[in-house]
């Protein structure tokens, strides 16, 4: 295993990924520039590389997958792209130069950076990044923040599909990184006292930036991370979803948080997560079967819309004119 590291922050939007990636960046890890500018989604900047976000946006479009997609079959669609040889070469050619030494004013010398890559869509393309990392001889490490599903989806429209997407992304994202160098951190722990989880992560993942951090870089993190970042404090009471979905989501949350405990990434917990994934797939297929008429109607509507503007519409169409 190479001692060089690229950390991929894997998790859905609003799940604490910006806090985690931004914290690591403040500590000295490098988010390859140019970065996505600060905005409504992350007032302090999302700690995202524009190239990475653009790539994922393009690929999700090609795969017809939404970043918050609830379909279990969507993993096959993005997996196909991740197995594409030309894409692997493209990602490799971008990633390699990002690891070139950069000047470190603290050390007054060029230092090979440790990278942090983050985008809510990255979970869909873990295989692609893993392949590129192998080719440039850097070890990928995966970092997943854990924030309760009600806090992630609370206060948003369409809570059922958002909850379902959270389950889909979290459970399959866990499967995608299983067996690799990885760590999980509870969002609450990060905000309560970031030094504990970040030091643990740094040690477990072998991050030089963390283990060799100096006082200045720690000050930077304190300035970046504060408990005020926690802007959503919703509970299940704010998230009206079907009982079975809520049950699977809550059980998933319980099992996932266990991964963040010392020694918690065990075969027994993987088996629990596998059963939950299976239960979710069954539930989704059941719901898909029930809602097939809605899907059929949308398909007919789409087909009608694609016949062009010259086609009669509305009453004219009904009257055959």
């Amino acid at each position: 295993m190479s001692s060089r590291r690229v950390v991929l922050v894997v998790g859905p939007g609003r799940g604490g990924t910006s806090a985690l990636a931004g914290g690591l960046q403040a500590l000295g890890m490098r988010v390859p520039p140019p970065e996505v500018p600060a905005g409504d989604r992350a007032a302090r900047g999302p700690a995202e590389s524009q190239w990475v976000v653009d790539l994922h946006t393009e690929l999700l479009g090609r795969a017809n997958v939404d970043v918050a997609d609830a379909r279990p079959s969507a993993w096959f669609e993005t997996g196909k792209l991740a197995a594409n040889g030309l894409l692997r070469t493209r990602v490799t050619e971008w990633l390699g130069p990002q690891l070139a030494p950069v000047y470190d004013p603290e050390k007054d010398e060029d230092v090979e950076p440790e990278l942090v890559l983050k985008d809510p869509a990255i979970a869909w393309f873990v295989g692609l990044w893993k392949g590129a990392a192998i080719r440039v001889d850097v070890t990928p490490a995966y970092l997943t923040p854990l924030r309760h599903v009600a806090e992630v989806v609370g206060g948003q429209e369409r809570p059922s599909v958002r909850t379902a997407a959270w389950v889909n992304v979290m459970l399959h994202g866990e499967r995608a990184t299983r067996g690799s160098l990885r760590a999980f951190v509870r969002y609450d722990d990060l905000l309560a006292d970031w030094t504990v989880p970040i030091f643990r992560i740094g040690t477990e993942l072998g991050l030089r930036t963390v283990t060799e951090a100096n006082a200045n870089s720690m000050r930077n993190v304190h300035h970046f991370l504060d408990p005020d970042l926690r802007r959503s404090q919703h509970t299940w009471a704010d998230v009206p979803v079907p009982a079975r979905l809520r049950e699977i989501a809550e059980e998933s949350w319980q099992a996932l948080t266990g991964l963040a405990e010392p020694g918690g990434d065990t075969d027994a917990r993987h088996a629990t997560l596998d059963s939950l994934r299976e239960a979710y797939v069954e539930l989704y297929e059941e719901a898909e079967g029930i809602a097939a008429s809605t899907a059929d109607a949308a398909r007919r509507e789409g087909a009608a819309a694609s016949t062009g503007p010259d086609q009669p519409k509305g009453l004219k169409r009904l009257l055959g004119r």
Partner: protein
Amino acid sequence: MTRSMTGLRNREGDAAYDITWPWSEGPLPDGLTCVFRVKNEARNLPWVLPPMLEAVQHVVLVDNGSDDGTPDVAREVVERVGATDRFTQTAYPFAVSRAGAEHLLTPPDSVHSLTYFYNWSFAQVRTAYSMKWDGDMVLTHEGVELLRDLSWQLRGSRAVVAIPRHPMTVESESVAWLDLGFRFLEPWVYPMGPEFTFVKGFEWEVREFPPSSERIVAPEGMCVELKWLDQDEFAHWSSTDFDAVRTPRKAREIAVHRAISEGRGDSFEGLRRVEAPPGVHVIDHVTGTWMAAATRPLVKRPDSLEV
């Protein structure tokens, strides 16, 4: 061939080797099982088995009359990597016709047919996806990771996956020759089910799949196929007089073998000499380091062999 919904019977009437399709007993659980049918692969298995056991949920190894200790070596390797609970070893005791003319003359429902042998071997699988793999093919680091991903991403897709392989002739512990002059592409990963069984082809067996199955082509650099310069690599063929039209892959392999044996490797188009650093076996070097760093595309020529 006596086919039924539940399996196949062989023409010899040996009920112990009748085939029961695993899906006839209920839906198969998710996961990918790799099936090796091997004969005298003791030399290769220490390189072949560990990465495959890292990649897939289960491995089935069917020994077919080895006399070089293959079953013992397999067992030792699997124990060493701590994967005994994910490994099934069994034996198929019948002499199987060699690829080529012998195969052509063997009825597909005979226990001596490659077709029957493959169907019997894959009937040992107990997961929803299966893959055929040869006892001389070694996954690279990237190949392991790709299969690990596909082993759960393929769920319910009915897709088949073709994986390019790169023949590698090992000259010594530190030197090998990679054939990057042709693209050898073959489907290896299939769903389990009645539409994905083996039927007879001219030279060997062919695995069926419906036209509606999506086909995924894996990137180059996922595996190498070991050849040993000091070993007869063509013993399992009826004849080494290969027809460049019917069996271009074999014709290419024997031409490469001859070129290296005769010291013409450097001038043979598409052959690449690789030398490992001191203390590292060339197989480990290629699969662990060299292949990952090699410039893409690996195979420069447009020629592609699909078998």
